[in-house]
């Protein structure tokens, strides 16, 4: 195993005095070498800080001794944001998992970064409140990771993404300084918006130690519809049709036939044989309004040749629909051992064009391609399943990804809606960001982290 550690014995000793426990064994390093990309980079050591002061001491030591520091939440990211690509120290924040306060009057919560998203959802819901960002991994992802990657989820069409719920942050920058940004109020324009800058910065600017999150009252009523179509184009077309009608669903999820095949067989209501795509549509709000909205949606989709429309009878059924939806991404491995997954976004009205393009590429290359995702906001998870050891398939896939990215940008879209750039997309960054933009971003990075010790090797491709 790698003996060329950037952390010598003295540093390990110092880390021990800061956090008490430092993991350095091979077994521990192997268990912290991956994230949900299933890529593998060994850290030299792992620590579990329990408070902000410890994080500050770690970053002060790291600045002084110049070793890489990589923050990590649950390690459930899909672009490698928490992978220690240059080795160094992995700072796992799962033990900073206190929900400090939930302020019912001002609808804000103060939380530590290690709080599991799903646990937070349940807690606020038990108080009649609602925290909308809901990535597929919410049962195990952490709020800190969600903020660092600006996680999204299915309800962005109505409720936006993590960014829209972060009011304020406390974070530590390399050197150990503790910075507090943002507000506890709905409004605030004092100086540059560092809170927004940190949100989605993928752990490259600072380590978040506390977050002030905005909450909403929990919608009184939610209804879930499952609609099947005999063509992918039709389903995609329906997405913008619904919104043009003035109906803003909480969610419109789109799934093509390959994605549907990854759902559990006991999917509530079953899947019609001739179905080639489906939408999951969810309306929420006041009961009366939801009821009429749902009727309008049912009328609209029926008019548009949907082959079947089913309404979830109760919350349990709705829950199993969502469980089936959330199971798709990991279950895609039934097709092939490797996955290339891109979470591109295109303007909603152009989803049909995108879906057609994918179909065209699928036929041209013979590769297994899967499209599904948060169609309501134009965020489509485009996935190629392949065996990377097959050089022909690999080459084809690389070409496909290139053309998908080019097409996405030509439609006025963006390369990543919610997964971030990390290491898996940095090679394509140049396609979307012009040199001037990149230069500014790199200058910002330098202002926060002049020695480049914090999460090195991410976002910007190595020269």
């Amino acid at each position: 195993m790698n003996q060329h550690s950037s952390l010598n014995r003295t540093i390990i000793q110092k880390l021990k005095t800061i956090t008490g426990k430092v993991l350095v064994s091979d077994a521990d390093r192997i268990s912290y070498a991956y994230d949900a990309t299933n890529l593998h980079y060994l850290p030299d050591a792992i620590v579990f800080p329990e408070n902000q002061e410890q994080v500050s001491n770690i970053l002060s030591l790291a600045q002084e001794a110049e070793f890489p520091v990589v923050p990590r939440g649950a390690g459930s990211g899909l672009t490698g944001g928490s992978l220690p690509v240059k080795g160094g120290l992995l700072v796992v924040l799962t033990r900073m998992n206190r929900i400090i306060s939930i302020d019912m009057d001002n609808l804000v919560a103060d939380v530590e970064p290690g709080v599991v998203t799903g646990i937070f959802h349940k807690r606020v819901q038990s108080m009649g409140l609602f925290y909308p960002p809901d990535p597929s991994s919410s049962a195990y992802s952490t709020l800190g990771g969600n903020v660092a990657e600006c996680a999204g989820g299915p309800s962005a069409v109505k409720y936006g993404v993590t960014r829209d719920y972060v009011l304020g942050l406390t974070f530590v920058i390399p050197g150990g300084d503790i910075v507090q940004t943002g507000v506890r109020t709905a409004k605030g324009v004092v100086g540059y918006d560092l809170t927004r800058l940190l949100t989605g910065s993928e752990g490259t600017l600072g380590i978040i130690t506390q977050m002030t999150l905005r909450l909403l009252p929990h919608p009184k009523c939610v209804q879930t519809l499952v609609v099947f179509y005999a063509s992918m184009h039709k389903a995609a077309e329906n997405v913008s049709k619904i919104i043009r009608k003035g109906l803003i669903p909480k969610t419109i999820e789109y799934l093509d036939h390959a994605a549907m095949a990854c759902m559990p067989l006991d999917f509530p209501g079953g899947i019609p044989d001739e179905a080639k795509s489906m939408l999951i549509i969810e309306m929420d709000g006041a009961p009366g309004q939801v009821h009429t909205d749902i009727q309008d949606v049912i009328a609209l989709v029926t008019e548009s040749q949907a082959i079947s429309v089913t309404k979830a009878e109760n919350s349990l059924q709705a829950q199993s629909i969502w469980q089936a939806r959330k199971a798709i991404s990991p279950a895609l491995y039934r097709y092939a051992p490797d996955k290339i997954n891109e979470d591109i976004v295109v303007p909603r009205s152009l989803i049909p064009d995108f879906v057609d393009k994918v179909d065209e590429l699928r036929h041209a290359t013979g590769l297994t391609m899967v499209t599904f995702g948060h169609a309501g906001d134009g965020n489509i998870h485009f996935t190629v399943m392949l065996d990377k050891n097959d050089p022909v398939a690999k080459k084809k896939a690389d070409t496909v990804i290139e053309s998908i990215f080019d097409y996405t940008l030509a439609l006025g879209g963006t390369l990543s809606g919610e997964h971030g750039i990390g290491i898996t997309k940095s090679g394509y960054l140049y396609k979307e960001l012009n040199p001037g933009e990149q230069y500014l971003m790199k200058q910002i990075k330098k202002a926060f982290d002049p020695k480049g010790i914090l999460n090195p090797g991410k976002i910007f491709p190595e020269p």
Partner: protein
Amino acid sequence: MTKELTILSKNYSGTCIRCGACMSVCPVYQVSLEETDVARGKMALIEWSQSHPEFSQSSRFRQLISRCLLCGACAQSCPNQVATHACIQQMRQGLSKSHKEKIMLSSLKTLSKKSSSSQFFRTSGSIFQRLMSKKLPETSGMHLRFPIASISHRQFLPKISVKSFTEAYSIQHQEQPSKRIVYFTGCGANYFFVETAAALVKLLERKNIHPFVPKDQVCCGLPFFASGDQTNAIALARQNIDIIDQLSPDIVLTTCASCGAHIHQWADLFKDDPEYHCRAQKIARCQKDAMMFLLESFDRNDLIALKKSCEGPPKENVWYHHPCHQRFGKTQLPLPKKLFTPFSHANIHYSDSQCCGNGGKFQLSHFDLSMKIFDQRMEAFSNQKITHVLTPCTGCQLQFAEGMLRYDMDVTVEHPLCWLF
């Protein structure tokens, strides 16, 4: 179209892709918050150990692989259908060869050779038998639960019945029973909680059912299987299969969730033995948890007739703990709520989302960790005045009995059948 895709000739599922879904359900991870404890970390370590034999023989590997309850929650939640708990059990098999963490049972190995008889279990000499006042046969996996070393940590030691249930039970067969019912007691109801077995037999009498309770039945073998000891797990399964199969049962009743679940694993032990594999499968198909049998054969009036004071304002606060072995895997069962609805004198709190932390031998080898999991479980408990804890699993029953002592709570821990009768 969809059908075509689901039955592709090549299926790559079954490989861990490190998505992390297991983190949300693993009782051990939720206490330790360390990746080495969760299934995806263990899968990474197992993969590493395959190419690094020195690591696979290290004490660290052994220790990490032992930190798992084998509850099956991870496999259940795995979107890629990785049989994580089976992989861990397989690793333990390899370990048990080189490291005799086995506690006893050299004589058990002769079981497969020797024709079995109750005499066999009476062989004395084991220190554990002395400890257990010679009442618990050597073959019982319960020895793995109560070796001397762990007693210092543990406050609760179950009383061993003077006579095992199977010894005491006398058969009163009907002439021509409409269904042939065999009761597989498991060690818990046979030696420690004989009242459970007695309650079942009395309940069945109400329906004029007299089950076969074979005297030669032995431990289901789960404790051995969980420690990776295939030899003993197979020997025990073989004897049980012989004994149960010759009775050609229609139904095999169990009162312990873990035994019930392990009966379904017997067939896996005989992958190279088609005859036993087939017989094991047959028995697994007949296995039925006693609570489910009751649900099907007792109506509301039958149930009301069981308890004298079943009406009036709630006097009892009853906590129903749903064991992991009925929450995951092949033996998933719904909560038996219908059995309790007639009893308005009791408030029943159903709990089917958390592990008690027992995990059989796990509680013994990782007592502190096991108790931490129990402590998390108790958080939901704390502000309720509970009078009874009901759980249809020997392991869970032992864990709660220990836990109640630690929390200094005066609570009756018993099998739901005992509460009903």
